[in-house]
């Protein structure tokens, strides 16, 4: 028999979508979390509503490695459609927990894994009468079984159930019953707990378990967005939804019931970004959230906002492309299309959060930055970060924080000046002063336009004037590089000659890979980029290393292109480490690619 392993495994639930399994699975992850053990979840769902296979994968790891890991240790298989592939995906020595109400077909048997049959359906049929109940409680039966098999503290699960049904308490006892059915069955038939098991720890600290989209929506709420325009698209829909949910709660005047925000479901993405631009032009903080196809549709408008210098915040929750692509899978493949969205010489500020806490922070920062820079700011998250539950530092807000509204002249300021020019570079940083419609009866009005104009916002076709205006935008871009969030550098004193650059959700696996490598005696410094344009630290990091691995989740090395284009570094120095099959990148894959691309040598330097 195996020796006992605590708090380190990957468990996958194979369900059918639309059968209520999601809430049972969430309960399971919450239980692990409440036992003080780090855990992260990945929902692998189809682009359909009901009846197709869906998987919920949990990585439990007391060392806090929470990126995806290849190989399933425990499979809870409740979906007959996917039985075959579910069995195959279990690692040798792993456990396959299934509903043995019907016998497993002998052809499915496999020598190297443990089969644990639990007659989930049968137990439910024996104890519940309604078909819908039988269906739902099946999920609780396997949770019960897992309590015993994995050594979950039953009280933790009971608490969760009690909280969940606090408004409908009569549902608590049948849920407890279903749990017990599972618990009792496995206790009777198997040796519990398994050698792969949980044990209470104190490793999650003050962290929370939250999906990135909720954090993003909250960040925009805290950041002062008052106009939201959006169009539904997976995986971004829940950003607007989260904003609305919390805004309904915290932005409603308790006396009048009036709302201090407006949210519009636009007719499409072109309209959504148009509304954001209109609102921001008119002095409100506004944002929209979308995904790849939406960004493509928004690109004309993004160019307008860049050139006419209007703040706009866009959250791009990236999914698998190109085209409609893999709408329920993750990628970081809109880097180029976001950075250079629109024709002509156009560039956009990008922010790259890695954790829900950063989603929150950056959504708020984006609103400040857009106002300050008077340009679109795109928050680049992805399906993995946006829709999955992640362990995250708690969301933080300093009540002393003021919104940075940027350079806006008030009526008084206008009164005190000779002549106002919308595009005069008064401060020599490329950022000019705008005025908000309605500010002053006779001063400060101008016409915003997407065409070439002079410093007083008058239409011009003068070549020199035009060149001056886009040179100023280039200057503003330099200013932006100094304002955007700085990268995080992970570098010990004695520096390595090899570096690694990552961003966004790739960091989970990248950090694990680096620690694994360090255990093998290979030391690599690393840097996590948090924004584009890149500030000097990024250039210095590349400069000071002989070779730099660039980890990203797309085929075309898009982020590496950005680094090369903007920092003028030799592409050969930047070694791509890629993953683009739609599943989150794993530490193993990073590690292997690094070893392979260096023939396993050259790293120990």
């Amino acid at each position, binding site marked *: 028999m195996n020796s006992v392993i605590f708090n380190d495994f990957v468990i996958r639930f194979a369900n059918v979508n639309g059968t209520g399994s999601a809430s049972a699975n969430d309960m399971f992850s919450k239980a692990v*979390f*409440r036992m003080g053990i780090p855990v992260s979840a990945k929902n692998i769902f189809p682009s359909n509503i009901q009846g197709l296979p869906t998987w919920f994968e949990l990585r439990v790891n007391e060392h806090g490695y929470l990126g995806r890991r290849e190989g399933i240790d425990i499979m809870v298989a409740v979906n007959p459609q996917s039985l075959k592939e579910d069995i195959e995906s279990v690692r040798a020595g792993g456990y396959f927990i299934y509903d043995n109400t019907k016998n497993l077909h002998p052809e499915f048997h496999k020598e190297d894994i443990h089969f644990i049959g639990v007659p989930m359906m049968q137990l439910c049929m024996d104890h519940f009468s309604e078909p819908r109940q039988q269906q739902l409680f099946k999920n609780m039966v396997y949770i019960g079984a897992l309590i015993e098999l994995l050594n979950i503290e039953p009280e933790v699960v009971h608490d969760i159930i009690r909280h969940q049904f606090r408004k409908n308490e009569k549902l608590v006892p049948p849920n407890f019953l279903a749990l017990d059915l599972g618990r009792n069955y496995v206790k009777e038939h198997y040796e519990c707990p398994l050698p792969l098991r949980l044990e209470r720890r104190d490793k999650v600290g003050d962290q*929370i*378990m*939250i999906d990135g989209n909720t954090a993003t929506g*909250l960040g925009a709420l*805290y950041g*002062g967005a*008052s*106009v939201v*325009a959006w169009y539904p698209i997976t995986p971004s829909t829940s950003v607007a939804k989260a904003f609305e949910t*919390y805004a309904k709660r915290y*932005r409603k*005047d308790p006396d*009048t*019931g*009036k*709302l*201090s*925000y*407006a949210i*519009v479901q636009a*007719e*499409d993405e*072109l*309209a*959504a*970004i*148009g*509304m954001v*631009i*209109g*609102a921001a*032009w*008119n002095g*409100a903080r*506004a944002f929209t959230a979308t995904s790849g196809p939406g960004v493509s549709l928004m690109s*004309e408008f993004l160019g*307008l906002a860049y050139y006419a210098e209007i703040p706009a915040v866009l959250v791009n929750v990236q999914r698998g492309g190109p085209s409609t692509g893999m709408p329920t899978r993750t990628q970081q493949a809109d880097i180029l299309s976001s950075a250079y969205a629109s024709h002509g010489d156009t560039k956009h500020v990008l922010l790259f959060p890695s954790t829900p806490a950063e989603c929150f922070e950056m959504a708020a920062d984006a609103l400040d930055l857009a106002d300050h820079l008077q340009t679109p700011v795109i928050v680049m998250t992805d399906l993995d970060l946006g829709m999955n539950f992640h362990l995250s530092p*708690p*969301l*933080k*807000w300093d*009540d002393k924080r003021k*919104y940075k509204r940027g350079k806006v002249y008030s009526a008084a300021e206008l009164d005190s000046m000779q002549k106002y020019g919308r595009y005069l570079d008064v401060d020599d940083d490329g950022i000019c002063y705008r*005025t*908000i*419609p*309605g500010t*002053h*009866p*006779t001063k400060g*009005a*101008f*016409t*915003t336009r997407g065409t070439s104009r*002079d410093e007083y916002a*008058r239409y*011009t*076709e003068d070549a020199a004037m035009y060149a001056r205006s886009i040179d100023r935008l280039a200057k503003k871009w330099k200013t932006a590089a100094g304002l955007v969030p700085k990268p995080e550098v992970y570098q010990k004193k004695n520096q390595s000659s090899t570096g690694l650059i990552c961003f966004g959700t790739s960091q989970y696996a990248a950090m694990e890979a680096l620690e694994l490598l360090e255990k093998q005696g290979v030391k690599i410094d690393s840097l996590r980029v948090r924004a584009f344009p890149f500030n000097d630290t990024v250039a210095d990091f590349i400069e000071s290393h002989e070779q730099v691995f660039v980890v990203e989740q797309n085929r075309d090395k898009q982020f590496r292109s950005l680094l090369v284009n903007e920092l003028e570094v030799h592409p050969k120095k930047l070694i791509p480490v890629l993953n683009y099959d739609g599943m989150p990148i794993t530490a193993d894959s990073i590690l292997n690619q690094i070893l392979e691309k260096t023939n396993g040598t050259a790293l120990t330097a």
Partner: protein
Amino acid sequence: MSFIKPNFRHPALPKNQVGYTKADYEGAISTLCAGCGHDSITAAIVQACFEIDLEPHKLAKISGIGCSSKTPAYFLRNSHGFNSVHGRMPSVTTGAYLANRDLIYLGVSGDGDTASIGMGQFVHAVRRNLNMVYIVMNNGCYGLTKGQDSATADTGSINKEGGVNQFAGIDLCSLAIELGATFVGRSFSGDKHQLVPLIKAAMAHPGFAFLDVLSPCVTFNNNKGSTKSYDYVREHIEATSELDFVPHRDEITINYQEGKSVLAPLHDGSLLHLHKLAPGWDPTERKSVISLIQTSRTNGEIPTGLLYLDTHTRDLHEVMGTVKEPLNALTEKELCPGAGVLKEINDSFR
């Protein structure tokens, strides 16, 4: 190239109640073709704004792209303007309106800008009953790109190159009514007498006020055979009514004629006095309006005037339940739930 008119004010020019002369409502010198209908509409807007004592900075003018969409530069120099992108004026206006409910929003568009590339956004602005004045300067062609037929060109209309339009022309008024617009009028750039009061009434209407203004393109679509030429339009328009707009603070002293007259109180207390010319038509009665339009279509007439009015309309901000204060004026205090609440929220995720 942009010509700015010298802002020279004759001291004796009459001032309106808010202290402005008519010249204060003008803009830069037009760069449109001499005789372009759009310039006359510009003049009508200037006139209307002067007459309703608008404070110019209380209005925002937003347009798409086209000769028509350039006109906001030629009126109301003290209003902020936004010459956005082709066909997308409605969404920009929606956003602007949501940000600040206290301004008047005047959207200017062309038939190309609205009926082709902008159709989707137009339909949805109507559907939301967005509180704005939406003027289409309708010349049946794409002026700025040199005269191609637009989607409002009538079947059989002949363009400058002799091409005969094969497709059905979209009747924007009729479409707006179908979609539930609450204020729909049609006029002619050459008929200032009718147009000015229509614009004034549209500005007082607290919902989507649509004006389809026939505005001949002298350069590309004023030829014989075109159904959007000055001659053709002059010959085929049929006024449905004569219109007076009585601002809410004016006392009603005029003695209205009985029988053929309709007195419609607008939301802000202003009054619309309609002297009806079209038989069997009541601008507040949807079915009769639709019937009027269908009949005119068959007879080849172009009904003008205030075609439809629904006074039971609610401002979109009311529908959405937003606070009285403009959203763009809210501060941290109103917008940010604060660290205390965030602690609760964090706890709910543990």
